[in-house]
């Protein structure tokens, strides 16, 4: 009985700390409509900062606890919240769910990157509980209950009371709730919604900071990723409160805290029969999150969630897609043949990520459904390919990646995709993102970490004998490369390596063309309809469940094939290769590339798999050359390695359609008849430059820089003669918005008149009809 009491008290204490963290999440969500995926990362940063001030012997260290708490919770936390509202979140109005989710993921990755950068050295940083280590229960128990736990309980109670008073008894609380109900109406009543949001964000991050400090001792020594995931467990509590109700959120947090501790108790009593579920404990909150999502009352079918979202994607024709696919394969072949081994490996890595990224384009880009678990499906694909070709005991059955293994990876992932999608079809947008996030965490913990073989006694299977299940054999899966049609890609010489690159590029191109064809088909039209307005689609007779399930399955199959190829590319994969954070990073960079475009997947995959490493490397090389600037260049190297991807993600707010369109837009003019000169000269220059590289006259870096200059110059040169066609001279969205406000009653000055001319593209019109301006 006393054990029950101890576990209950611990459960309540954990639940109380979760409740504090979840309250911060709900406060920001209700006031700004943005669910902060970076909430755990904010808490993690606060825990590090507190540790630095309170316990470190380095800079800042050894402050008294109250002073350190004051600085972390009441100064750094709110300032940071106000700052991210101002710099990041304010730009998210009229964007889709995808862009909003991506933005907070970028923030998450920025914070974990920053923490790894600043506190990256392997020294153990152990946060200490408040009020020392006096055990309040008998020492014979497997767990200790500390004053810290009691303090957490008291703090949560106090915070609940304070939040209640602040939200329901003060003028500010009323204003805040008014902004939630109707931003525009509250504005008419003299409320400043931006400022209110800012205060809410400050409050939310301050609460997150408090939670971070309180929760960090739970994990032993500090680790950026582990602590972020640990605090992110409170998503379950927030969903229990339907992201709006604080009392229900507190209740949900207590449920999660108790469940985790009772499970620990059960496991310590149950003994070895349950070892196969030993990884359930860390994923239990995410399992609960999925359960909470499923029992939530069904959301009403919504129409378009924003009046006119800023994202715009053009769909190429299948012919264009085939052409560009061929160009990609040719370019990769040309580059591969002059590359050295190290960049070849990087490029192959980028291409394999790009293939996985295609699954994101299909699901999020074409159908508007959010799947934060692309790497979970990729990992499952790798497991299936391994099991088919190598076998559970790790002894190779065949020496080449078989077509059967790829097909099996696709089929199994599609089936798992259906299993995930069926309960998730009721969900949309943010809720689906949360469900797939939870799925990714659970698969990471329960499947990819299952390194030892399991003896399972499954009823009705195997005649009552134990069945050996070996998922992630000794934590490493070795998957061979293909040897098809007499072409052996398993060797390691230069030519084979180039052939392998071409193989990956061709696989990407093939899948990409298939995606474009799919989008162009009537099935693709239906996907677009589903994305633009589910309500209208349903009232036109569309079975949303069937469509969503099928597209989820297709997307999972692509990710599975990508995962198998990624494993074959690397030769062997570990559980860390399919981590939740890898999936989040890839998803984010596909959005940066342009989630509605196959090219976006290519850019996203290449950036994620290779881009930032290459850029970081470049600075490192320069640092070696220019020793006087060494520290600055080393700083730039670290900046790109740790923060580069996240910064690219945050940049998405200014350009939600991604960079693919913008990057290729200028080249459209090269199709014009009078641009043939530019194409011919540019093409010959490129070819000549390439020959010089093949002959070894110029180094590869010189080749890359020169080729990039020629490519940039081709349309630019044309624009010097036809400036009216230059897309960079088109009005920016901000100008358009400003012009919206120019009414007929105002005097229009020259600048505004010029802007209106540009907006109406009058100079283009003049150029077309041959009238001077």
């Amino acid at each position, binding site marked *: 009985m006393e054990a029950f009491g101890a576990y209950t008290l611990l459960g309540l204490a954990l639940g109380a700390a979760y409740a504090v963290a979840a309250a911060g999440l709900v406060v920001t969500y209700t006031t700004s409509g943005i669910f902060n995926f970076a909430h755990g990362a904010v808490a993690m940063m606060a825990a590090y900062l507190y540790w630095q001030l309170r316990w470190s012997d380095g800079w800042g260290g050894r402050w008294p606890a109250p002073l350190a708490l004051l600085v972390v919770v009441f100064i750094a936390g709110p300032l940071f919240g106000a700052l991210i509202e101002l710099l990041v979140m304010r730009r998210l109005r009229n964007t889709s769910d995808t862009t909003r989710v991506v933005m907070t993921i970028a923030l998450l990755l920025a914070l974990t990157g920053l923490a790894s950068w600043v506190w990256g050295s392997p020294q153990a940083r152990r946060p200490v509980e408040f009020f020392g280590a006096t055990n309040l229960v008998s020492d014979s128990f497997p767990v200790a209950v500390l004053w810290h736990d009691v303090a957490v309980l008291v703090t949560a109670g106090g915070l609940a009371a304070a939040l209640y008073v602040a939200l329901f008894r003060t003028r500010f609380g009323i204003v805040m709730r008014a902004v939630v109900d109707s931003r525009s109406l509250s504005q008419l009543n003299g409320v400043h919604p931006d400022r209110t949001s800012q205060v809410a964000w400050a409050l939310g991050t301050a609460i997150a900071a408090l939670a971070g400090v309180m929760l960090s001792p739970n994990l032993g020594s500090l680790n950026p990723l582990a602590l972020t995931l640990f605090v992110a467990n409170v998503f379950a509590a927030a969903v229990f409160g339907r992201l709006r109700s604080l009392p229900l959120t507190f209740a949900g947090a207590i449920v999660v805290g108790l469940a985790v501790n009772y499970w620990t108790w059960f496991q310590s009593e149950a003994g070895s029969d349950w070892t196969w579920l030993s990884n359930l404990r860390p994923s239990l909150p995410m399992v609960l999150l999925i359960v909470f999502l499923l029992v939530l009352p069904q959301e009403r079918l919504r129409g378009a969630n924003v009046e006119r979202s800023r994202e715009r994607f053009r769909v190429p024709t299948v012919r264009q897609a085939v052409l560009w696919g061929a160009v990609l394969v040719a370019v990769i072949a040309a580059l591969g043949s002059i590359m050295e081994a190290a960049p070849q490996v990087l490029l192959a890595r980028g291409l394999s990520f790009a293939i996985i990224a295609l699954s994101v384009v299909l699901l999020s880009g074409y159908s508007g459904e959010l799947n934060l678990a692309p790497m979970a499906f990729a990992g499952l694909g790798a497991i299936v390919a391994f099991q088919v070709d190598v076998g559970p005991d790790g002894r190779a059955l065949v020496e080449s990646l078989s077509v059967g293994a790829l097909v099996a990876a696709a089929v199994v992932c599609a089936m798992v995709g259906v299993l995930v999608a069926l309960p998730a079809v009721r969900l949309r947008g943010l809720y689906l993102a949360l469900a797939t996030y939870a799925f990714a965490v659970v698969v990471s913990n329960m499947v990819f970490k299952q390194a030892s073989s399991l003896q399972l006694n499954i009823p009705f299977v195997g005649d009552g004998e134990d069945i050996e299940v070996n998922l992630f054999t000794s934590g490493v899966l070795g998957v061979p490369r293909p040897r098809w049609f007499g072409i052996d890609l398993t060797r390691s010489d230069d030519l084979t390596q180039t052939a392998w690159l071409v193989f990956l590029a061709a696989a990407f191109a093939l899948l990409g063309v298939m995606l474009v064809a799919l989008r162009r088909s*009537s099935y693709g039209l239906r996907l677009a309809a589903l994305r633009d307005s589910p309500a209208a689609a349903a009232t036109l007779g569309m079975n949303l469940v069937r469509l969503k399930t099928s597209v989820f399955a297709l997307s999972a199959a692509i990710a599975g094939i990508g995962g198998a190829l990624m494993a074959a590319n690397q030769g062997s994969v570990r559980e860390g290769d399919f981590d939740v954070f890898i999936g989040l990073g890839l998803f984010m960079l596909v959005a940066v590339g342009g989630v509605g475009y196959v090219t976006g997947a290519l850019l996203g995959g290449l950036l994620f798999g290779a881009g930032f490493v290459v850029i970081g490397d470049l600075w490192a090389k320069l640092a070696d050359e220019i020793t006087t600037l060494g520290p600055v260049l080393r700083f730039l190297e670290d900046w790109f390695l740790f923060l580069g991807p996240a910064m690219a993600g945050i940049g998405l707010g200014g350009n939600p359609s991604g960079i693919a369109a913008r990057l290729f837009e200028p080249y459209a003019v090269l199709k014009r008849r009078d641009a043939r000169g530019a194409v011919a000269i540019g093409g010959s220059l490129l070819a000549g430059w390439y020959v010089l590289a093949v002959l070894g006259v110029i180094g590869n870096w010189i080749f890359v820089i020169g080729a990039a200059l020629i490519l940039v110059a081709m349309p630019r040169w044309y624009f010097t003669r036809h400036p009216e066609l230059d897309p960079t001279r088109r009005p920016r969205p901000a100008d358009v918005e400003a012009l919206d406000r120019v009414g007929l009653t105002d005097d229009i000055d020259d600048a505004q008149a010029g802007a209106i001319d540009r907006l109406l593209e009058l100079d283009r019109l003049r150029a077309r009809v041959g009238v001077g301006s």
Partner: protein
Amino acid sequence: MTLLSVDDVAVTFGGSTALAGLSFDVGFGSLAGLIGPNGAGKTTLFNVVCGLLAPDRGSVVFDGRDLHRLPPHRRTQLGLARTFQQLELFGSLTVLENVKVAGDIRDRWSWRSARRSDTASEARHVLELVGLAAMADVEVSSLPTGQARSVELGRALMTHPQLLLLDEPASGQDDGETEVFGRLLRRLVDDGVTVLLVEHDMSLVMSVCDTVHVLDLGTLSASGSPQQIQRDPSVLAAYLGADR
């Protein structure tokens, strides 16, 4: 003969009552108008009939079949189609694609390419009907409201509806467009489509409808021919807020 029968339908949102036991019938082949001040529950009724919203109580019977718990897409397959007061267009598609996709959804079991190309030519035909033939390849998000409403109408027609629920289809149209639209409605009814029309443009309602139902505070306050309704004092009261 009755095509749609709404019986004692009630819907509340939190504390406010949107529909309070509403009952009325729409006959086969008729053009029925549904009018009432803002907040009377007209759009809520449409949402209940097409299955986007479950009523607290009451039943909706369509063509002799109780629609209870039937999802929206099944209702459409039975012959119900609607447009939306707040436009619900597929913003990333062109005008033609918006209409064509409805045909593709309708023909979901048809894998024969012949049928599929049919939906494209049928869509062009429908665009002619609603007066948008010239706009086929325009991105729908760049259309003015009046024309965007016509796209929604065309899209609904592609489902081959028996009953068409139109939610303020004429708002955003100028007088000339409204007149053309009225003629189109009559033509649809002549072709056998039953229409339930929610509209604030009284001249349109009174000129084209066979019967008019007046909704006020979630209940039916009057029903009858346009002439009867125009003389009904309770209608004036509902609109002008006078004592009853």
